[in-house]
């Protein structure tokens, strides 16, 4: 992070401001955190979709919303993969138990096996964010543009982690148990497997589950690295610098870390306190509607 350049005057101003800040913080904490006022928080989606913002604010919001949407979609998908991972472990446990179960037990375990596979599928079906689901088909994709002026963008294609695709892929890859896994996915049960072949078949099934687990984990790590990429590529500075010719040097210097942000906030507070200016010109209505 770049250091913040402060003049001697700024420093001494900040020092004296610091002493008033403790007091200010106490007051503001009471004001800002005191009593709960609004019982329900309004639906965020409603105002994000609102068209009342100025064109300029809309341009900024569009890009930020896209990044927000990208992160949320990826996170929904990652959360789903984590749950699928857990379900697959249970599925493997059920298959192993079937090795030593009697006929009634095998029927019961077969039903559990099918239930868990159903859960995998319905869980994946719920993993969408605002209509984009990256884990239950291969037909969707997520695109996040980092800038309106460049072509820089992130594309993520969806993958199919539903039981059918997962086990077919796993079975083909390891060339074991595809028929059996398919039969079980189709709702068959362990009782249909000949006793003589039971152990081998179940071993095939568990190794197919193991392959499925590694597929799911690879997907999770890929989605996770896309989230990281979004974080690091989300650079808003170029916008500001282009639009603010004077003072742009200062802006470039101030690639703030938390400490720097604190100092600039204090300085800005002082500047604002000395001049009767406000930020948003005619947008008072927009500001108010944000918290209605």
């Amino acid at each position, binding site marked *: 992070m770049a250091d913040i350049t402060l003049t001697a005057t700024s420093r001494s101003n900040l020092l004296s401001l610091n002493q008033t800040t403790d007091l200010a913080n106490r007051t503001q904490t009471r004001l800002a955190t005191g009593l709960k006022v609004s019982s329900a928080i309004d639906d965020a989606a409603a105002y994000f979709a609102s068209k009342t913002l100025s064109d300029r604010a809309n341009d900024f919001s569009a890009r930020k919303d896209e990044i927000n949407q990208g992160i949320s979609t990826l996170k929904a998908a990652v959360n789903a993969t984590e749950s699928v991972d857990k379900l697959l472990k249970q599925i493997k446990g059920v298959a192993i138990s079937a090795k030593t179960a009697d006929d009634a037990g095998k029927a019961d375990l077969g039903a559990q096996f099918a239930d868990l596979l159903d859960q995998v599928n319905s869980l994946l079906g719920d993993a969408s964010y605002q209509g984009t689901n990256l884990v239950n088909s291969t037909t969707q994709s997520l695109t996040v543009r980092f800038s309106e002026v460049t072509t820089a963008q992130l594309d993520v294609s969806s993958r199919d982690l539903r039981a059918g695709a997962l086990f077919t892929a796993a079975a083909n890859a390891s060339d074991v148990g595809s028929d059996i896994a398919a039969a079980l996915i189709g709702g068959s049960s362990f009782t249909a497997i000949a006793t003589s072949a039971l152990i081998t078949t179940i071993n095939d099934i568990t190794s197919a589950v193991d392959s499925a687990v590694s597929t799911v984990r690879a997907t999770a790590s890929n989605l996770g690295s896309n989230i990281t990429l979004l974080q690091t590529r989300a650079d808003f500075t170029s916008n500001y610098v282009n639009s603010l010719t004077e003072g742009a040097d200062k802006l470039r210097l101030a690639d703030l870390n938390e400490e720097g942000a604190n100092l600039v906030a204090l300085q800005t507070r002082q500047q604002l306190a000395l001049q009767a200016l406000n930020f948003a010109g005619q947008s008072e209505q927009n500001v*108010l509607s944000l918290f209605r």
Partner: protein
Amino acid sequence: MYPTQRRPTYSQIPPEGDPRRTEGWALTESARRLAEAQRNPADNAAFLDAVRRNWRLWTIFQAGVMSPDSPMPNELKANVLSLSNFIDRHTVGVLADPSPGKLDILIRINREIAAGLLATPATAAVTATVSVPAKPAGGFSHSV
């Protein structure tokens, strides 16, 4: 949980007509919601809502400050945009990996800027140069 009859006046939506006070109020209100989200991180939807709302508020400011007819001096613009840039990047970080501690800096920035906006320039000049905070009244005009 909280008695609604003790609802304080400052948190009610202020009347239109004083943009400076409105913006100060909005920053304080956003900080309050962030602080509330920080205390209840389990309510993930409310947590993210508070963060996104704060982001949107700063986007409105950012657009206003970058508008060609903004009367702000460049130094102040640069400061506001630097803060806005920090908030942009920090907010993306919070959305990607929510944790209550990360809201501290957002809350602090809002409170500082709100304090500047809610100060009336005449009294604030005194507050900013006097090194001993003698008067708690300071430059705050919440109770208007």
